[in-house]
């Protein structure tokens, strides 16, 4: 493969820098000079204005894509507030994927770390929840197994068995009771309510998943949540139960008593796709 023509590399490198500037190119003498070197302009637009059209489109498209994926975060922060977040995020995490679907992947971590957003835990809650919706929506398909398949496993095989969760299952720990915040945000956008009520403090353990091609979520016990997390991380069932009981500060007995009910619900929701015996 022959390398790209040097003049093309130079032009594209320069434009990539100019198009990601957060302010009109005409406000910066150096940027203007560089844009004018590249674009001819015409009788209506200068070369700088021509390049600026693409720069504006870059922000419109990417801020717009983030706004679509994080609509309750946008409602929480307001028009200008979300715009400021999106621009700061784009500057720290410029798009590297061929698809806009991946654009917001680092936003949950970004708002958890960056001031001023890190100061409001609800911002991080919403970013995590809404990104879980994105991931659950188009996660791989998998066939669920029935409770009977689990019940038929001999008891001595349980501790070393591995439970495979449906790829759409996303675990979101939240500091607020805010899993319904998106529907509130949509009501606000539709003008049905005039302000967003601030959610009560949590904690809240939410599982987002796809059931019958629709996105769903449900809040679960802390113990169930901890067990799902351990199973997702690949721990065998016995080990996972021990870890989860410790995390949830449950005695082994209460944990074991709850287990049957959890598995019953999880299989009915299609969260379990395989139960693999050791060896």
């Amino acid at each position, binding site marked *: *493969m*022959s390398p*790209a*023509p040097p*003049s*093309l*590399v130079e*032009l*594209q*490198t320069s*434009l*990539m820098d100019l*198009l*990601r500037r957060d302010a009109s190119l005409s406000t910066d003498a150096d940027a203007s000079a560089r844009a004018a*070197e*590249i*674009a*001819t*302009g*015409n*009788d*209506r*637009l200068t*070369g700088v*204005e*021509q*390049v600026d*059209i*693409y720069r504006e*489109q*870059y922000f419109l*498209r*990417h801020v717009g894509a983030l706004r679509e994926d994080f609509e309750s975060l946008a409602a929480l922060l307001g028009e200008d507030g979300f715009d400021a977040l999106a621009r700061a995020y784009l500057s720290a995490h*410029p*798009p*590297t*994927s*061929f*698809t*806009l*679907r991946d654009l917001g992947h680092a936003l949950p971590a970004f708002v958890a770390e960056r001031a001023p957003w890190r100061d409001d835990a609800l911002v991080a809650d919403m970013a995590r929840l809404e990104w879980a919706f994105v991931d659950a*929506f*188009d*996660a*791989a*398909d*998998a066939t669920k197994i029935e409770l009977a398949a689990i019940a038929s496993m001999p008891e001595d095989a349980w501790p070393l068995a591995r439970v495979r969760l449906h*790829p*759409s299952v996303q675990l979101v720990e939240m500091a607020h009771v805010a899993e319904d915040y998106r529907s509130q945000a949509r009501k606000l956008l539709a003008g049905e309510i005039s302000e967003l009520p601030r959610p009560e403090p949590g904690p809240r353990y939410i599982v987002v998943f*796809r059931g019958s*091609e629709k996105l769903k979520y449900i809040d679960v016990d802390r113990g169930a949540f901890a067990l799902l997390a351990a199973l997702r991380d690949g721990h065998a069932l016995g080990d996972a139960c021990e870890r989860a009981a410790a995390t949830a500060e449950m005695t082994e007995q209460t944990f074991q008593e709850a287990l049957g009910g959890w598995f019953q619900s999880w299989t009915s929701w299609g969260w379990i796709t395989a139960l693999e015996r050791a060896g």
Partner: protein
Amino acid sequence: MSFRKRHGIGDLGVGVGFRTKHYPHVLETKPAMDWFEVISENFLVAGGPPRANVERLKDAYPVVPHGVSLSIGGNAPLDDDYLRRLKAFVDWLDPPWVSDHLCWGGAAGLHIHELLPLPHTEAVAAHVVERVKRVQGFLERPFALENVSSYMTFRESTMQEWELLSTIAERADCGILLDCNNVYVSSRNHTIDADAYIDAVPADRVVQIHLAGHTDKGKYLLDTHSDHVCDAVWKLYERAIGRCGAVSTLVEWDDDIPEWDVLSEEAATARRLRASVLSRGASPRPVEVRP
């Protein structure tokens, strides 16, 4: 023999883009429509509703994928992950051709999701030709390049856009997706002759035509796909059909998407115009093929 004949590319009629707003109506009632185009990237996902929807669509209509992320004119190596996923999708869909744009959309590891124009130079032509050959070979499927709407012109350019497009298509031996609205938008933005553009494109290589609406921003036209096809673009379409013959045509509508009936009527208008041009006996004129 023409590119279309060599690859057995027939006429699918007039179709529309498959967009979320119309999924329920299209998938549940299967309204009359010749064919659909899907944006490839929207379906290069692991699973879930996108894949299920395109599968249902494929069961009822011819479906052709149209990409926006190839960045054929970029200086970075072609994105292997993207190409592998596209190939798997295309193999599954089994369309008569695959298309993307004559543009670039990123560099140095970034994808900026724009259809940026390229300087019209010999060096760019050579660069793109080599990449089109690789893409077409990898996908094992006829590949078509679409002309984009543009808002800037480069000091470096030494030829017209249609010369760049035609040169690349001939040398890389690929197809062309002729977007009449893009020809119009660029011709207005850069004061070039749209008729001359249509007349210069190698007719035997045109496998598909796009029609769409745009927005007048005062000092320039913006390719928004948010409106009806304008009269001037219909004229260009008639001219293109007159030259190219019965070429599969697609109406793109991506913003302010109207009700299905409005979109369907836009396709019907294209169908009527196309039929009337074709019935005038305006069979494709002999096209001079460069040696």
